[in-house]
């Protein structure tokens, strides 16, 4: 059983085809990178997995469930199983680092005692124990991204989608985030990393799905950035 299955998925905006008949599978615990130029449809692909967008054609399955057939409440449940790391962080600006992490746990209905125990531990895991009471505007880009990762971990997801997570970061922070993601993956969570950072892809040595012109042009187990 695959965790994610894109079956002949196409997506068009105003008649212009962004993704054209894309098919691929991601297994539980796998680490796959989506590579391609800007605008090639990487973000669209991830948005469709979170049901932020719907495919124009084709079907998307998560744990063998057709995402397009999910009802509102089921979409909320799906999103609790899929953690998303964004390039622009998407932190709740009026909540502290601790509250951002706690929020994800509140959403999932965790009891207060568990939140009070786990949220500080998760912040410690991403080296932010001293920044728990800081608001996002008081944090650097690298710190914000680490809060996002702590928030994602709080969800205990089966899959993490990372959309250009290092796009706004300096090289040191970039490698810290990549290290965190690989560590999380080693603990069993599947990861789809969308990026056009050649160095990161070539160093990872994991599966690479290359997109160009809306199609998958290459899908290699230990791939390299070759576009």
């Amino acid at each position, binding site marked *: 059983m695959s965790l994610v299955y894109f079956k002949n998925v196409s997506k068009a905006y105003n008649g212009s085809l962004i993704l054209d008949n894309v098919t691929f599978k991601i297994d539980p615990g796998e680490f796959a990178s989506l590579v391609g130029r800007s605008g090639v449809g990487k973000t669209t692909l991830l948005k469709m997995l*979170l049901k*932020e967008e719907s495919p124009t054609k084709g079907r998307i399955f998560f744990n063998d469930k057709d995402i397009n057939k999910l009802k*509102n*409440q089921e979409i*909320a*449940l*799906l*999103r*609790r199983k899929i953690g*998303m790391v964004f390039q622009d962080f*998407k*932190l*709740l*600006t*009026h*909540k502290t680092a601790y*509250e951002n992490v706690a*929020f*994800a746990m*509140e*959403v*999932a209905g965790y*009891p*207060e005692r568990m939140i009070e125990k786990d949220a500080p531990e998760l912040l410690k895991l991403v080296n932010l124990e001293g920044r728990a009471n800081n608001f996002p505007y008081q944090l650097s880009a690298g710190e914000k991204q680490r809060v996002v990762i702590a*928030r994602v971990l709080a*969800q205990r997801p089966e899959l993490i989608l990372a959309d250009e997570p290092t796009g706004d970061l300096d090289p040191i922070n970039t490698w810290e985030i990549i290290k965190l993601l690989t560590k999380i993956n080693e603990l069993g969570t599947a990861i789809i990393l969308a990026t056009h950072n050649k160095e990161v892809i070539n160093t990872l040595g994991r599966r690479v799905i290359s997109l160009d012109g809306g199609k998958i042009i290459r899908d290699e187990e230990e791939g390299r950035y070759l576009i």
Partner: protein
Amino acid sequence: MLIILKRVFRTAWQGLIRNSWLSIACITMLTISLMILGTILIFNNVSNELVGILEEKMDISIYFKREVPEEDILKIRDELIGNEKIAKIEYISQEEALAIFEERSSRNPTIMRALEELGENPLAAFLSIKAKDTAYYSEIIDEVNSSAFKDKLMTVDLAENQRVIERISALSTGIKLGSFLMIIVAALLSILISFNTIRMAIYSLRGEIEIMKLVGASNWFVRGPFLLEGALYGLFASFIAIVILMPMVMWISPKVQSFISEISINSYFWSHFWYIFGIQAVFGMALGVIAGFWAMNRYLKV
């Protein structure tokens, strides 16, 4: 359930405190709306009281010629009692009319002296009629004027009364209609102002709403704190509005009373304090909640 309520309340309170400028803007606009509402409530009461006073003072007095015997007048009274437009008829005999006149003129020695010189009662007996509705007065006058007993009347007074009655009737209808229109316009205006302010506040938080949804929050988990925040805006605004209304009422009440001594805004305000505050609070909270609910729906479709 208790945990969810606690979380909703905590998030709402955080939103209110941390988005302080937004909260101040919303509460200010709601306060203005609620002050308009409070003023309307008070004005509506003043106009109702005014109409009541005018209506209370209105009556038709049908004066009979002096030679008409009392039993004829009483027969006419009994006839008129059956008229469905008439609420009350009172017979005032010549003697009673004189007694009333003497009492009213007791401080005017000239009139009293003239009365003594006349030696006899110059006043006519009359029927004092109160209609069930002010609009009926002119119809009653018309009916009396065309009745079988019209020859027994001194009809001149009726004609004069008719003009006054028509004016008062038009005035009271005008006041009722005017205050009703004012309520509608002011209510619409205040709803529009508050709705737009809260809509803008929610618009500025649309990014946060989107993030909450992407993290897996259900629509009600996102909505709850925002709606509670809207209700809190309304509650705080109603407190502020009633506090501002207090000195305003104390300032304007004696001014109105100097024109119409029977109307005391001050005593109405204090005797209806909880009623006014209650309506303001319910209206303010409902506005905050409904505006928030309506404005949020669009951003929840993530």
